């Protein structure tokens, strides 16, 4: 697979080199490499089961890799002596199923990790949490429990919860896949705002219009390898690989 080095002037912020991963006999990722620069937004698309979500989970160490290397900032993710706290302070993740803590209010969901993990002052954290609720346009919903919020609102709380740790890179794992069509937009707008502020974002998504508009670079994975990649204009308008063409023709 050709390395793309043309758009990197500085050292990459996330660097994935020749990663292999399997669950038992099932080889999920079969040698994936790519780099992400600071402030870059990349979108990974591909059929289900192609290893996209697993790849994201490898980046923040939720899933162990068999071989290869993943570097985030200056941390080697799969170093057995890695300080996981350091890694997870840098990498925020948002899930398809929101995974809010149902026994806590929206505000408490945001405040928990800074208070218990980073041991920050509760008053300061609270102020910041209110700010984050405003940022995801949910002011007034602070005292609502996740069960009382719509899917789109829950997902925006989940984004705010992740941002409360002040991450430097955000992973979005099909964050709109479980949402009703009318609430997809509010979540995408939140992500776009983030990207425009310069947050490094890795998105696994099926929202092609959104990817085309926002991504700096597109990746298409199938069967655990990257089949094709490139800037969105080229990727969407003139795909080269027949598998990419077929996938795009099905989805667009």
């Amino acid at each position, binding site marked *: 697979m050709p390395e793309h080095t043309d758009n990197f002037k500085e050292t990459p912020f996330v660097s994935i080199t020749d990663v292999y991963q399997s669950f038992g006999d099932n080889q999920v990722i079969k040698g994936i490499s790519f780099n992400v620069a600071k402030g870059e937004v990349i979108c990974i698309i591909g059929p289900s089961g192609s290893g996209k979500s697993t790849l994201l989970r490898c980046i923040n160490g939720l899933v162990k890799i068999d071989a290869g290397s993943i570097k985030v900032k200056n941390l080697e993710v799969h170093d057995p002596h890695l300080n996981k706290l350091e890694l997870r302070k840098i990498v925020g993740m948002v899930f398809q199923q929101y995974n809010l803590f149902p026994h806590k209010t929206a505000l408490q969901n945001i405040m928990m990790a800074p208070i218990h993990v980073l041991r920050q002052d509760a008053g300061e954290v609270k102020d910041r949490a209110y700010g984050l609720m405003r940022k995801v346009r949910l002011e007034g919903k602070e005292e609502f429990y996740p069960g009382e919020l719509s899917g789109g609102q829950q997902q925006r709380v989940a984004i705010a919860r992740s941002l409360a*740790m002040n991450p430097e890179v955000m992973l979005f794992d099909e964050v709109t896949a479980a949402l009703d069509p009318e609430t997809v937009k509010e979540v995408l707008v939140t992500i776009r705002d983030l990207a425009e502020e310069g947050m490094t974002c890795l998105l696994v998504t099926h929202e092609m219009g959104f990817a085309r508009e926002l991504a700096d670079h597109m990746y298409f994975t199938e069967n655990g390898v990257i089949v094709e990649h490139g800037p969105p204009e080229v990727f969407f308008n003139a795909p080269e690989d027949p598998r990419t063409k077929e996938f795009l023709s099905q989805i667009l």
Partner: protein
Amino acid sequence: MFRRNPKRRPRQVNPRHRLAVLLPTRPGVTGASNADQKFSQLSSGRLRAIHLLWLFLIFGASAFGAGAQNGTDQPSIVMTILAWTPLLLKGFGFNILISFMSMAFGTAIGSVLGVLQISLLPPVRFSSRILTQFFRNSPWLVLLFYCMFMLPFEITVGGLRIPFPDWIKAVIGLSLPVMANVAEIVRGAINSIPSGQWEASESLAFTRRQQIWLIIMPQCYKRMLPPWMNLYAILTMATVLASIVGVEEVMTLAGQVLAADGRPELLVPIYSFVLLWFFAYCYPIARWTIRLERKFVLNT
């Protein structure tokens, strides 16, 4: 606005299936006959009254029937039983005490055992699983006998003699199966929490201990309460097993009363009387459990 989460575990048809062995059988409303449906439409208060009324009727009939065969020179059955009531109540109080203490010990140790079953260390995990399965699948009476005959009647700790009366042994014997069942309740509740909760909290850098105590367990308490209360009701009914090993609880005393009075016609009324107490004690617990379950199903 409530949104259904498509990947969430499908709602169980009967949420009590998890520990079905421990649960009172009750027909599901869907498959129930017409009469059952009418029955379930009754308010729970009336339901309780009807059941208690039946028991009173059985007890009264047995006492009256026994009294009818009775000569005139002896006091009536009802008067005799009332005379013995203070003694029998004392015995019943002892049953409740044993049930409280067994439940307390069993819950304390069982909770630890339940959490150990999800330990990341394989030896800890496997040994706690084996321990749980062993005590969960042993007859309660056999465990009780073991404790009776294997434990010493006193322990000497540094010259201090601590007596170990039979009823303490009974408490220990009963708390073993309670422990194992509580451990299963805890493990089941933890496993019923969607894996996304673990992933999300892990990605927010919570430690494993924080995950368990701040994220997972607080969501488990509600799920654990109904089966735990069920277990308590079952334990209370099982405390009479202690009579077999000679603890002076209500059944032993009832037997002694019968022996002292030497009136065979007392047999059915006295045991019905005791039955009535247990029913009056356990049935409200069962009703309350069902109500909590319904409430929690609506909430989730």
